[in-house]
């Protein structure tokens, strides 16, 4: 890893663009050197690194250290889009994508992931000379906001329930802000101080004008997100409309638009997760002697379809598919089965599709969690490095929001557990409590495949949440049985444990260890804190333990409110169960609805626009 600092002799910090601090990330040393010099020529202050992981580390160390990030799209250790998402979500810095590929799909992907610009290689000096505009825009707004606000807390996102001003969905904002950036500069004084923006870097490119629903940025703290997820689960993903979520959340100063936007992001996240999961599931293809690539393409839907005709992948609108760089449209969408987990991040699907699926999985397997004590970092660090799954993004988000969760290892365990063959991963769950490399054996897919839940397994591999979703939907009968017997939370796990075990319909308990392990694994994956518990539970290998573990998990949900997905997944499942009485049909419907919702919003709608479909369901 190499980090170089270019000294800008004219570092006048406030003389934008001179002295603007740029972080450049590109694995190609030639491009990086060229970029560095070009940036120096523009009189920026340049730091370079050829590893995305290192870049994230730098950014996290000090969020104020950089003004702008320029990143390549294709990098070996982490997908550029994922880095983009992480940076946007965590640090709220403008990110510019660089690529040799300027195809519409890729550019679109950049936009949806929040890039504020997309440059083609070879980059020209003239283009770089203008990139400062993205920073200035945000800075002006921020300054305005700052002067208007008195009680800002720069560490806004760390405080639970801190003033929840809502940032428009990242993507939405970025795009709208980009469009309006030129105008907004003139109107920078019109920031509405309606809600406090605690962010230090108020890089909210919101229009000062209400035209873009401008609101101070809401920081979705762990607590807030937890409430959000709880509300969504309670309502059922298909019925989760912003208005009702808002009501349930009962948070002051949160608006429906805030919720809508967040919901959109959340769904995107889920979709990505499920897409990843389905990819993996299909890869395993243990049961179907199918060509792995076809699995990938079919992904979740196939699995679903076998269950339920509604889960037709045909619903994937082209707009969604376009998000998938590689031909995995289904994958992204496919995860309706996983209760609306949005398809895997495009990068993910791209990766998997483009390469040997098994390799992808293997890559995942090989992730060795760095000895990072920050669990959250671990998790998402490792994930991105292996597979730029969207869930990695989520994990990455974890660090900032939840200190109490994620034990990457455990999540790894969870992941591995799913991937592995039932027995294998079961062992994993049990034995490798700590710091196991994420193994994503494709065998877990087998499990699912066996149950015709290919997609499900893949999801699980990715996220326990995914698993829960998949399991939930899959195990109709099991679920109900489980539900009757177990605490709802446990049911969640068991149900999907069942699903994981091929043809193990009768045995939810049959393999208590396995189930517990898987369940716990999953839970752990979902919640850092939960993991711990789960793990303990799993190791006990007793259903009861697992159940209690699950229960614990459920209880912990509130604590765990990690930013996203993990909790979300679990909660969702639970919510699903709760609301539907764990009927498979209900689940599938939810999934399908989610899918539809996803479709609707994938069409580029922002925030509340998504809901109509969902609401209609």
């Amino acid at each position, binding site marked *: 890893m190499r980090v170089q600092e270019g000294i800008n002799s004219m570092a006048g910090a406030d003389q934008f663009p001179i002295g603007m601090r740029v972080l450049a990330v590109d*694995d*190609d*040393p*030639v*491009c990086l*050197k*060229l970029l560095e*010099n*070009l940036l*120096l*020529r523009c009189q920026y202050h340049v730091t370079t690194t050829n590893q995305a992981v290192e870049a994230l580390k730098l950014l996290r160390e000090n969020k104020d250290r950089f003004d702008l990030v320029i990143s390549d799209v*294709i990098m070996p250790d982490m997908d550029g889009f994922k880095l983009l998402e992480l940076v946007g979500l965590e640090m709220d810095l403008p990110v510019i994508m660089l690529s*040799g*590929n300027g195809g519409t799909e890729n550019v679109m992907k950049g936009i949806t992931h929040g890039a504020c610009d997309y440059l083609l*290689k*070879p980059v*020209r*000096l003239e283009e770089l000379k203008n990139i400062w505009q993205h920073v200035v825009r945000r800075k002006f707004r921020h300054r305005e906001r700052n002067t208007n606000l008195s009680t800002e807390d720069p560490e806004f996102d760390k405080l639970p329930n801190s003033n929840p001003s809502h940032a428009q969905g990242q993507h939405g904002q970025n795009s709208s802000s980009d469009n309006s950036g030129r105008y907004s500069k003139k109107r920078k004084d019109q920031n509405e101080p309606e809600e406090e923006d605690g962010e230090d870097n108020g890089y909210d490119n919101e229009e000062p004008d209400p035209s873009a629903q401008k609101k101070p940025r809401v920081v979705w703290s762990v607590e807030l997100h937890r409430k959000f997820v709880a509300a969504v689960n309670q309502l059922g993903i298909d019925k989760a409309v912003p208005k009702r979520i808002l009501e349930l959340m009962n948070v002051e100063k949160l608006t429906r638009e805030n919720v809508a936007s967040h919901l959109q992001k959340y769904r995107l996240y889920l979709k990505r997760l499920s897409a990843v999961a389905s990819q993996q599931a299909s890869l395993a293809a243990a049961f179907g002697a199918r060509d792995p690539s076809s699995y990938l393409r079919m992904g979740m839907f196939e699995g679903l379809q076998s269950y339920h005709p509604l889960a037709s992948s045909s619903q994937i609108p082209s707009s969604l598919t376009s998000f998938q760089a590689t031909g995995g449209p289904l994958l992204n969408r496919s995860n309706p089965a996983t209760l609306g987990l949005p398809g895997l991040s495009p990068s993910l699907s791209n990766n998997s599709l*483009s*390469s*040997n699926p098994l390799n992808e999985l293997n890559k995942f397997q090989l992730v060795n969690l760095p000895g990072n004590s920050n669990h959250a970092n671990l998790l998402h660090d490792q994930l991105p490095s292996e597979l730029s799954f969207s869930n990695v993004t989520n994990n990455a988000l974890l660090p900032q929001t939840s200190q109490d969760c994620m034990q990457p290892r455990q999540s790894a365990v969870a992941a591995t557990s799913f991937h592995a063959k039932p027995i294998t991963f079961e062992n994993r769950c049990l034995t490798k409590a700590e710091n196991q490399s994420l193994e994503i054996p494709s065998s877990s897919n087998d499990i699912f495949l066996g149950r015709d839940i290919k997609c499900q397994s893949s999801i699980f591999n990715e996220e326990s949440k995914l698993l829960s979703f998949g399991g939930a939907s899959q195990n109709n009968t099991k679920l109900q049985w489980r539900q009757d017997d177990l605490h709802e939370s446990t049911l969640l796990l068991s149900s999907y444990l069942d699903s994981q075990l091929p043809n193990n319909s009768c045995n939810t308990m049959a393999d208590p260890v396995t189930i517990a392990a898987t369940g716990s694994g999953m839970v752990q994956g979902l919640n850092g804190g939960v993991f711990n518990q789960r793990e303990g539970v799993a190791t006990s290998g007793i259903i009861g333990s697992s159940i209690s573990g699950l229960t614990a998990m459920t209880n912990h949900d509130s604590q765990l409110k990690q930013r996203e997905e993990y909790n979300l997944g679990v909660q969702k499942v639970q919510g699903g169960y709760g609301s539907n009485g764990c009927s498979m049909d209900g689940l599938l419907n939810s999934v399908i609805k989610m899918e539809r919702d996803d479709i609707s919003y994938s069409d580029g709608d922002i925030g509340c626009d998504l809901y109509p479909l969902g609401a209609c369901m």
Partner: protein
Amino acid sequence: MDYVHLRRQAASLRKGLFDQGYLDEQFYQLEDLQDDASPNFVEEVVTLFFRDSARLMANIDQALDKCVKDFNKLDVYMQQLKGSCTSIGASRMKTECTAFRECCRDENIEGCMRSFQKIKREHSVLRQKLESYFQLLRQAGPVECATRPNK
């Protein structure tokens, strides 16, 4: 020493590279970036390029030797190589890289191998020429030779 003569030689070598399509406009950018702060920028980048591309090409060689026909992997490698070529303006190599990637898309392993041989040739020729060029520049003195002549 006849600096003028050397400089003229260097200039002519350089012009030849452009005329024959070995280099394209991107190379001008490199030259533009060379200044007092980075007086050897072009040579540094070019050196870096040859080192990195050699590594990539070794990977590709290995991948091709294995006869596994992992076109995806080959494509990924080639994409990286092409990116590098684009960055320094190695025009002919870039063209061959594109051809190689097309062969990958068509899953034409023979085509890939042929194309790769061409890439290796181009790589080697370009390297020779640029090395001569820089050597001449060095000999001719650092004055204005490093900057782009009137072109």
